[in-house]
């Protein structure tokens, strides 16, 4: 059987001519881009033998937004808003992943308070992303109610984001040089109130799923690939941790003062859909631990780096100091200049290793921004994960991969 090609005519009825007597015909099924469980606009061309998948090839690009190219036309600070639109479930992680290499090029020292707020918010956004994953994954498996339960908590998280940044989804709260705004009055109460009741909610989810025989039947032993293969394909994040490799950039290459926090990396050995479920559930609990530490030990101080050429001056200073006014004018009209060079700083996004490779030519606009996105890396494994499996398994596997199409296509 030859491999099917990525062409738009793959939707034609049966594949390859008339069958010989006594053989079964294979069916080409075009799953997506409009399909309830391809999580956006992924198109998968499945070749089916009955309900068994002979081969699967993903067709991406339906959500292409040209963010990578667009970034070259905007100033460094403006690019932050673009990163929000890539992976719309964990935009704070994107903001952070973009700011880190730019700050590295600028050699900025980020104040402790800003770093801690960054950690706290990215962990909350990790919980947010895992909640959405859990809801949609269970929806794929037919457990509809879970979706509404997780979205109840997600609503609280979005309220927290709105409280901090004025935006629910496109926060752009983490900026080059620090944060966009001082955390608003009352944030401590809001966040601690949310974090306090969350463990009970996660217990509720686990009570519905972890020991549920149907759920276990659907997920155990499903979507397995050997660890070596996963490594070859560049799979990161919960998918690789569920296969037994404790690879977490927060531990291996700490950024934004993650080294000061005490947390574990949940690891499972089985490498199947169920293991990924367990890893993500445990990760939510670990994130709660990190947020609690942030709440307990949040340092005081400025939220922006002491770099007048990069960070906008205070409004008050502009009225009294000539330099402040000049810098303000320069930054607003032209943007700040970044020394020529290139930098890459990976972060651990909810989906895996996320990194922005930023090349600067000394102007105020990046020469090139390349995104190493976890969704794209994890999607590499799709064809191999699907081969020889049933359609139902493929849906469970697809859900467990937890990709965001905006992150894949950029």
């Amino acid at each position: 059987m030859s491999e099917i090609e990525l062409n738009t005519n793959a939707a034609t009825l049966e594949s390859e001519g008339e069958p010989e007597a006594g053989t079964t015909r294979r069916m080409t099924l075009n799953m997506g881009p409009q399909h309830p469980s391809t999580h956006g606009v992924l198109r998968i061309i499945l070749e089916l033998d009955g309900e068994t998948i002979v081969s699967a090839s993903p067709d991406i690009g339906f959500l292409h937004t040209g963010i990578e190219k667009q970034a070259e036309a905007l100033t460094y600070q403006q690019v932050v808003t673009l990163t929000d639109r890539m992976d719309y479930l964990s935009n704070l992680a994107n903001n952070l992943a973009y700011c880190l290499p730019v700050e590295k090029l600028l050699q900025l020292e980020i104040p402790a308070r800003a770093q801690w707020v960054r950690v706290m918010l990215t962990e909350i956004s990790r919980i947010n992303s895992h909640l959405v994953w859990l809801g949609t994954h269970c929806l794929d498996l037919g457990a509809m109610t879970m979706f509404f339960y997780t979205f109840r908590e997600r609503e609280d998280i979005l309220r927290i984001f709105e409280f901090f940044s004025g935006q629910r989804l496109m926060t752009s709260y983490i900026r080059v040089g620090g944060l966009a705004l001082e955390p608003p009055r009352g944030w401590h109460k809001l966040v601690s109130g949310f974090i306090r009741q969350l463990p009970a909610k996660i217990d509720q989810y686990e009570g519905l799923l972890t020991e549920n025989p149907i759920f276990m039947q659907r997920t155990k032993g499903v979507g397995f690939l050997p660890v070596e293969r996963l490594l070859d394909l560049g799979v990161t994040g919960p998918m690789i941790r569920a296969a037994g490799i404790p690879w977490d950039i927060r531990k291996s290459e700490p950024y934004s003062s993650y080294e000061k926090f005490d947390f574990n990396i949940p690891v499972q050995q089985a490498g199947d859909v169920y293991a990924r479920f367990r890893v993500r559930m445990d990760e939510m609990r670990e994130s709660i631990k990190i947020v609690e530490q942030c709440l307990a030990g949040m340092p005081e101080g400025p939220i922006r780096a002491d770099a007048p050429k990069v960070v906008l001056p205070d409004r008050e200073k502009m009225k009294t100091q000539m330099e402040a006014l000049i810098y303000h004018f320069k930054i607003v009209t032209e943007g700040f200049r970044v020394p020529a060079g290139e930098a890459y700083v990976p972060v651990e996004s909810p989906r895996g290793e996320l990194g922005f490779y930023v090349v600067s030519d000394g102007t105020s606009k990046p020469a090139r921004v390349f995104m190493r996105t976890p969704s794209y890396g994890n999607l590499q494994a799709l064809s191999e994960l699907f081969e020889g499996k049933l359609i139902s398994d493929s849906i469970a596997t697809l859900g467990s991969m937890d990709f965001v199409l905006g992150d894949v296509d950029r």
Partner: protein
Amino acid sequence: MNFYILSLVKAGLVAFVLLTFCAYLVWIERKVLAHIQLRPGPYRVGPHGLLQPLSDLIKLVTKEGLIPGNVSTGLYLFAPFLAVALALVSIVTIPFGPEFEIFGVRTWLGLTDLNIGVLFILAMSSLGVYATAIGGWASNSKYALLGGLRSSAQMISYELPLALAIVAPILIANTLSFKELAEAQSGFYFGFLPKWHVFAAPFPQVFSFVIFVIAAFAETNRVPFDLPEAETELVAGFHTEYTSTMFAAFFTAEYANIVTICCVTTLLFLGGWHPPFPAEYGSSFIPVILLLGVAGLFFFHAGQTLKTRKWDRFSFPVGGVLSLGLAGLFLIPLLQPILVPFFWFAAKTLLLIFFFIWVRGTLPRFRYDQLMRFAWMFLFPVAVVNLLITAFAVALTSN
């Protein structure tokens, strides 16, 4: 002559009640599911969304009935008709209450009492497979084809444990007529334990009850066995391509099947219209007490309605008065022998339907092969063993 008029009246009544109930079953399902899922459910059309079924109907009927290209038109149109016809025909053998005499006419709640009523229902539900298989095949859509294949395999497989589970109580009651089956379950052991087949001597039919309910979930394509229309896998399964009235027909058939199968469960295992405890202990007054409680709730909430729901101040008292009126009906001696048995029948059936919806709100769905393995490797053997034990027990005690 009298017989024909009576039959016509009853047929009209049953058809009207069944179809209305099917429509409102959708409302009930959406409301119950919504409350499980922390949302209010239908709310805009009429008070508490009570007119939602009507608006759904208008919407479905007035939509364009699209026939996709390259479908097998005859079969494509025939499938939904077959589905709804079979689903509605099944209800004729179901008795809803015992015989009674009113205004000098002796009759009973129900259309016809076939002496092979149980077999008839089984036959009709087996034929229902054709509707989904044909519909899936004729649609010229891959999702529909896969859904049709899945559902034929599933329904044929689950027919076996279903039938075997039915045979056991039939052995005990020694009849195939639903009416006689229900009458066989009247009376009480030790004066309090009802002689329902779930508790029946010589061998309680708990196992066959559970098997029957599980198989019923599969027969009606409900979660966790809703693979034929697994939304996230096969879009909408066999009725993916259907629109308008044809879709409405499939939809009605699905809900009519749920009603029928819950009625059958009630009749076979839960004693039909017989109360759960004797009338000496006041079981006839349970409906009155319940309705009074409902009326009380209505009046209580009418006093403290929210500002955003102003008209509840009027709709709640109306509901309360209606409940009081119903409670009054249950106290009229002439109507009591009709209403009280019917109340018990309806209560048991509605509880089962609620269970169906509850399960839908809780469980994920099986995988196709797991579902088949479950039927053949687990349900079928258990049903056979249960049948053998029952047969043995009946043979021992019948002498």
